[in-house]
C-alpha cells in the first residue's frame, strides 16, 4: 500500500504494470494512450526490463507473443484502431495459452473515428475479437486507482488460467488525473515461480517445450480443454460492485467511466426521492450474469448506460432473460454521460416516457438527447435523427 498521490490514468497504469512485474513492453503510438509507452520507455530499463517501440501494433503484439512464451510478464497497450490490428496476435496468444496483458484505452470508432473517449469496443473485447472460439479476461476499471492496481490482478488471472487478459479503459480514464494509491508492494518477477511450459535456455535434460498455435488434429481436444477453463472462470471469477441495490426501483448497469456518471445519478436520485441503484461489472468477461439475474427480479426496470450503440445492453439482456424490462441510455461516438441525463432516462422508465431511452428502431428520443449533450460539451453531434 502506498500513500495517495495524484496521477494521470495512463501513467498510473504504466507504473502499476511495472510494479506488477511487467518486464517486457512493446507498443506503438496512438492517442489517447501515448503516456503508457512513454512512461515505459523512461522506466522499464531501470526496472530491468525491455521496452520496444514496435513498427506497428501487429509487430508489438507479436513481440508480446514471443516474450510471453518465455514466461516473462509481458504487455502491450493501444487504443481502438490499434487494438483491431492486434487481434491477430491476441487470437494466437489465446491459441497458444499464453498469459499477457493487453490494454485498450478506447477511443471513438468505427475506423479512425475520433480521439474522444468511448466504450465502442465492448463487443470486440468480450467476444474474443480475433478468429476462432476463444475469450480473453476483460477487466474494466472505473478510476485511476483501479487502472493502477488492475495490472497485478490481470496477471494473476492470466497466469492462473493461461490466457490473455485485457484491461478495457477509455480515453477519459486514461487522460484524467485523480489521487490514487497502489494496494500492493512492487513485485520482483524473479521471485515468481517459473512456468513449466515456458521456452527458456538450459533445459538441463527436461523435455523440450513448444509454444505453438497450429493444432491440426488436436484442435478439438484443445478447444474443449480451453472451454472447461472458460466455464470455471465464468463460475468463479466474475467481479462486480453494487450501490443501493437492496431497495431500488430502477437498477443502472454500467462499467468504466459511465459507472462514475451513474454514481452521480444515484446521488441525484436520492435527493429527488427516487430509488435508484447501480450494478457495475468489473469483469466484462466473465460477465457477472448470475448476480445481475438475481437483482433483476427485484426492480421495475434496468437501465444500461454505455458510451456505445447498445453493446453492453446485450449482455445485460442475456443475463436478465426477460425477467425485467431492460432499457438503454446510449452515448456512442464519443458522447459522455452525466448524472442529470441519466436521471432523465430513469424518470422516463418510471413514467412510461421516452426521453433519454434509446431504441435502435425508434431512436428519436435517445439520440437527440445525446447529441444535444455533445454539442454543449463542445463536441460534434452529427446525428440529428428525430429532431
Amino acid at each position: 500500500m502506498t500513500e495517495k498521490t495524484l496521477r494521470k490514468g495512463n501513467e498510473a497504469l504504466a507504473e502499476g504494470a511495472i510494479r506488477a512485474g511487467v518486464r517486457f513492453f512493446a507498443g506503438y503510438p496512438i492517442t489517447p494512450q501515448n503516456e503508457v509507452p512513454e512512461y515505459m520507455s523512461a522506466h522499464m530499463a531501470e526496472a530491468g526490463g525491455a521496452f520496444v517501440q514496435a513498427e506497428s501494433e501487429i509487430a508489438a503484439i507479436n513481440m508480446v507473443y514471443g516474450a510471453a512464451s518465455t514466461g516473462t510478464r509481458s504487455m502491450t497497450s493501444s487504443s481502438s484502431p490499434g487494438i483491431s490490428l492486434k487481434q491477430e496476435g491476441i487470437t494466437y496468444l489465446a491459441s497458444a495459452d499464453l498469459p499477457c496483458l493487453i490494454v485498450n484505452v478506447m477511443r471513438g470508432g468505427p475506423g479512425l473515428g475520433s480521439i474522444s473517449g468511448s466504450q465502442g469496443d465492448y463487443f470486440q473485447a468480450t467476444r474474443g475479437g480475433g478468429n476462432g472460439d476463444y475469450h480473453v479476461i476483460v477487466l474494466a476499471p472505473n478510476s485511476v486507482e483501479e487502472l493502477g492496481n488492475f495490472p497485478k490482478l490481470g496477471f494473476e488471472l492470466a497466469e492462473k488460467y493461461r490466457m490473455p487478459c485485457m484491461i478495457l479503459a477509455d480515453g477519459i480514464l486514461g487522460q484524467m488525473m485523480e489521487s490514487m494509491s497502489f494496494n500492493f508492494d512492487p513485485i520482483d518477477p524473479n521471485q515468481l515461480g517459473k512456468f513449466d511450459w515456458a521456452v527458456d535456455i538450459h533445459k538441463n535434460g527436461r523435455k523440450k517445450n513448444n509454444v505453438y498455435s497450429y493444432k491440426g488434429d488436436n484442435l478439438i481436444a484443445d478447444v474443449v480443454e480451453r472451454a472447461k477453463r472458460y466455464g470455471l472462470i465464468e463460475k468463479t471469477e466474475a467481479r462486480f460492485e453494487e450501490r443501493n441495490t437492496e431497495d431500488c426501483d430502477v437498477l443502472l448497469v454500467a462499467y468504466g467511466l459511465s459507472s462514475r456518471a451513474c454514481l452521480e445519478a444515484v446521488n441525484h436520485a436520492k435527493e429527488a426521492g427516487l430509488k435508484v441503484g447501480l450494478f457495475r461489472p468489473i469483469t466484462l468477461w466473465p460477465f457477472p450474469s448470475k448476480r445481475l439475474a438475481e437483482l433483476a427480479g427485484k426492480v421495475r426496470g434496468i437501465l444500461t448506460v454505455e458510451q456505445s450503440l447498445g453493446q453492453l445492453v446485450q449482455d445485460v439482456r442475456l443475463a436478465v432473460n426477460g425477467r425485467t424490462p431492460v432499457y438503454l441510455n446510449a452515448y456512442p461516438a464519443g458522447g459522455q454521460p452525466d448524472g442529470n441525463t441519466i436521471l432523465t432516462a430513469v424518470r422516463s422508465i418510471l413514467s412510461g416516457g421516452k426521453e433519454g431511452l434509446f431504441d435502435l428502431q425508434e431512436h428519436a428520443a435517445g439520440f437527440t438527447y445525446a447529441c444535444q449533450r455533445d454539442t454543449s460539451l463542445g463536441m460534434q453531434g452529427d446525428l440529428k435523427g428525430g429532431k
Partner: protein
Amino acid sequence: MTIIAKKPASLTDLPMHYCPGCGHGIVHRLMGEAIDELNIGDRVIGVAPVGCAVFADSYFACDMVQGAHGRGPAIATGIKRSKPEAIVFSYQGDGDLASIGMAEIVHAAVRSENITVIFINNAIYGMTGGQMAPTTLVGQVATTAPKGRDPKLQGWPINMCEMLAQITGAKYLERVAVDSPQNVLKAKKAIKKAFENQVKGVGFSMVEVLSQCPTNWYATVPQALEFVRTKMMPQYPLGVFKDEGGK
C-alpha cells in the same frame, strides 16, 4: 567402426514431412550441425513460421515457438529481449518474410536485433499449393499467375539481401543455395556464421537460401536443381552482401 556422419543432436528423431527433393530438410540439418559445432544447443530458442516449415518446431531439439505468418522477427525480438542470453533464430519462407512479414524483417534489421534469420527462398508459396510469391521470377508460372509472372500486372521479384543491405542495422547478409554439395558446404558455413555472430553480439544476421520446390514447380528433382542454377541464380546472385561481423 568409426562414425563419420550422423544426425545432429540439435534435431529430433521425428521424420520430416517435407516433399522429396525439397531443400528444407537440408537446411534444417545444416542449422543443427552449426548449433552442435558452436555448442550452443542448450541456449537456442527457435521461431517456426507459417508455411511448409510450420512443423519445424517439432524437428529442432531446442525449445521452439511457432507464431503468426510473417511475424517471426517480431516474436524473436520478444524472446531475445526477454532472454538476452538465449540464441534466437527465426526460420522463414519467402511469402512469410518478403510479403506479409516485410515490415517485421525490415524493422528487426533497423533495430539490429541480435538474432539469426534463416530465409528460405524457393520463389513460390509451397504449403498453400504454388501461388505467386514476392520472389517468383518473371515469367514463372504459379497458380495465381497462370500465364507466368507479368511485371505489368504483378511487378518484379524482390531481392531481400540487396534491399536489407541498405539498412545500417543489418550486419551480415549472405545468399547461398543448396543445389549442389559445394553449395551445401558454403551454405553451412554461412549459417554457422550467422549463429556465431549472435553469440558475439554482432547484431542482425540473415542467410537467404535459394531452395528447390519440385512439387510446386511441377519439376523432377534434377529439373528443380537446374531451375535453381539457371533461373534463380541470375535473378538472385549468390554471395555476401554485408559482413560487418568482425568490425
